[in-house]
């Protein structure tokens, strides 16, 4: 079937089987490989992208389900060479080690900060429960998110 999505403000179309998962559609059909496949069981969050502005796990969404909808991936955050504030905060606070979970962490953070009225460390830790980091880098990730929100003490 023919699937058209708006990814990072660009309309993109590709042919794919109905069973194609969104993460594979992004990576293989649209060649946007910033989004990672981690656990492939909707646990780890490495495949997190924004669907109509909200975080979703793209390994548990069919590309067919989002035909005609808007997506944001990690490739769409920076403005040219200027990093998005969340990306910049992860860089400044060493919020990554191997970097594999990072695209998902950053996208989940963008969604979380848009939803939180008051950003606290507890709210960040709860809000990122759907993203796993196997370098055990949570301490600096949480610092990065607080910094991005302007509340790092």
């Amino acid at each position, binding site marked *: 079937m023919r699937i058209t999505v708006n990814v990072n403000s660009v309309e993109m179309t590709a042919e794919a089987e109905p069973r194609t998962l969104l993460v594979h559609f992004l990576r293989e059909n649209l060649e946007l490989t910033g989004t990672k496949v981690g656990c*492939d069981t909707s646990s780890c969050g490495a495949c997190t992208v924004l669907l109509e502005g909200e975080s979703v*796990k793209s390994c548990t969404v*069919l590309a067919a389900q989002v035909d005609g909808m808007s997506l944001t991936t990690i490739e769409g955050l920076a403005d040219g060479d200027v990093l998005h504030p969340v990306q910049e905060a992860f860089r400044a606070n060493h919020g990554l080690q191997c970097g594999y979970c990072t695209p998902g962490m950053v996208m989940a953070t963008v969604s979380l900060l848009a939803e939180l009225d008051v950003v606290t460390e507890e709210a960040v830790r709860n809000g990122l*429960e759907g993203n796993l980091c196997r370098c055990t880098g949570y301490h600096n990730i949480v610092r990065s998110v607080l910094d991005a929100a302007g509340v790092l003490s």
Partner: protein
Amino acid sequence: MIPATFDYVRADSVDEAIALLGEHGPDAKLLAGGHSLIPLMKLRLAEPTVLIDIGRLRELSYIRPVNGHIAIGATTRHRDLEISEVLAETVPVLAHVAGQVGDAQVRHRGTIGGSVVHGDPASDLPAALLALGASLVLRGPAGERVVPAAEFFVGFLETAIGPDEVLVEIRVPPTIGGFGFQKFNRRAMDWAIVGALVATTDTGTRIALVNMATTPILAAASEAALLAGSSVSEAAGLADEGTTPPEDLGASRLYRRHLARVLTRRALESAGV
């Protein structure tokens, strides 16, 4: 993991979805958020030949008070329940439980109707609906019927819904007092190893257990003990009576029984019973 092949059709109305179910037969499945069905399809535990997508039916996404109860459209997402002002005022336990399902990403996609018709005894919302005395509105070719939650969950991943029916609405009576929800798991986003939910309704203190049988189940002995004047700890000590908990990597049967008693006590305490 890739699902087996299937045909995909999008229904533009509930009536069209019912017609498509009739046309494609029992191997067709409805798809809403897909957060129960797609994982099963990836594991090839489910291999529907046709998916009928009802995920975009705005007519099934709402939360509103109607005639003394709260009417919730079947494709209302967990996130919408979590932040609903109507639920915060009338059935706050349901908003709270929805906010504990999976993680933020899951709650952005998963729907209450999808969770209910999946009928997993380890999921939180079916137990909540059982405790609350909710009703499920099913629409099929012959019209609508209303099934109480107590009669809807009939076995493991098995419900009273017919192959040509669509769950369109969940009706929940308002609660009248405190609530408690205790969910025990090893990773924050996981299914409950055991959960205990306490709601105060006009029929008294209701206690439902998650993952303690092949269906969500009421802690009937605890409820009866409270009615008879037992203390919270005495009543909670009976929570596992009549349950048939599973045994798996998460916990043994014995440990689940222990958890049911402990979590019920904590849930009763946090409900202020």
